[in-house]
Every structure is written in structure tokens, then in C-alpha cells.
């Protein structure tokens, strides 16, 4: 059975954008700092709306911030 994962570049983008803190990004995206932490750690997949808001904060497209990868299905 294959599994899906969403990776993101948020941590790197925060540092590239004037050392933005998690709290600052959270305020701009309209969520809590804990949500940003969970997204960065890959423990929470944001909704489409939130993904767009985060991407717009960095002035980038969604696919530049979030990448969708599908693991190879295991052999049966």
C-alpha cells in the first residue's frame, strides 16, 4: 500500500525572509504558532486555504512552498 506525504520549505523560507519567527508567520497566516510548528515538522497537513496564505506570505506559489510526494507502492 502506498502512502502520501507533503513536504514543505517553510523553515528555510522563514530564515531567508529576514529571519522570520514562527510567531510572525503564524500571525500573518492567521493561525497559532503551534500550528506552524506542526506544519514544519510534517505532523499536520494544512488546508488549501492555509497553504495559499502561507505561500502568499513568502510571495511564492503553493508548489514552491509545499511538495507532494507519493511513496512507491510496496511489492506484493
Amino acid at each position: 500500500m502506498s502512502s502520501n506525504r507533503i513536504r514543505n520549505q517553510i523553515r528555510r523560507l522563514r530564515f531567508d525572509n529576514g529571519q522570520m519567527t514562527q510567531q510572525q508567520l503564524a500571525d500573518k497566516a492567521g493561525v497559532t504558532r503551534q500550528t506552524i510548528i506542526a506544519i514544519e515538522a510534517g505532523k499536520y497537513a494544512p488546508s488549501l486555504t492555509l497553504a495559499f496564505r502561507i505561500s502568499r506570505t513568502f510571495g511564492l506559489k503553493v508548489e514552491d512552498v509545499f511538495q507532494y510526494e507519493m511513496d512507491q507502492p510496496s511489492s506484493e
Partner: protein
Amino acid sequence: MNLLQKRAWIDLVKTTVATMIAGAGVGLAVNFNAKGIVPIMAFVIGASIAGLVSCLRSIRGQAGLDERERKIAVKAFIISTHIFVLFLCFGSFTIFFLSGARSYIPGYTLPVLLLTGIFISQIAQSAVILIQFAREQADEQ
């Protein structure tokens, strides 16, 4: 401590107090052997007001949460609802089989069962929320 965690603690305290007050009410009703249309109407009016206030509070309460917190709150509610139903099932049939299929049980058994179920489900709901956030904080450190 974020908004959802605070609400989990506050809801736990509120439910405990409300359960104690309701339990005292049941105790008084048992003591005075309350029966008839007047106690029924009093209960219906009181329970309707409490239910309406609780429902409106739940709806308004969602407004201050972000999407992840809302998902956690919904997950906690689903788990607590399942626990409530399971408790009622086990409680009902335990009483049924312990007392015997053709026996009689005191009238206060049903309200006590219901109040206990509500109390346990609220504990479960608050616990799910608080444990979820405690695990995240542990992962952060």
C-alpha cells in the same frame, strides 16, 4: 497554554460543577419523591435552556480556534460521544443483568446513569485535547 487547552480545563470544571448541581437536584427529587407534570415541566424548561446555552457556546467557541485546533476539538468530541454511548450501553446492560431481567430498579437509576455518562464523556473530551497538546509540547522539547 493556548485557547483550546484553556477551554478544555474550563469545560472540565464547569461540567463537574454542573454535574454536582444536577446530582443534588436528583437527590432532592428523590428525597421529596417528586413526580407529576410540574417537575417534568421544570426539568424540560431547565434542560432546554441549558442545552441551548451549551449549543450556542459550542458554535461560538469554534470561532476563536484555528483550523488545526478545530480538528483537534472535533476529534475530541467524536471520541467523547463514542465513550458516552458505550458507557450508556454497558451501564444499562450491567444494571439489566445484575438486577435481573424481570426485576424493578429505583427511578433515580436512569438520571444517575445519564449524569455519570455526561461527566465521563466530558472528562474524555478534555483529556483528549490536553493529552494531544502535551504530546506536541513533549515533541517540541
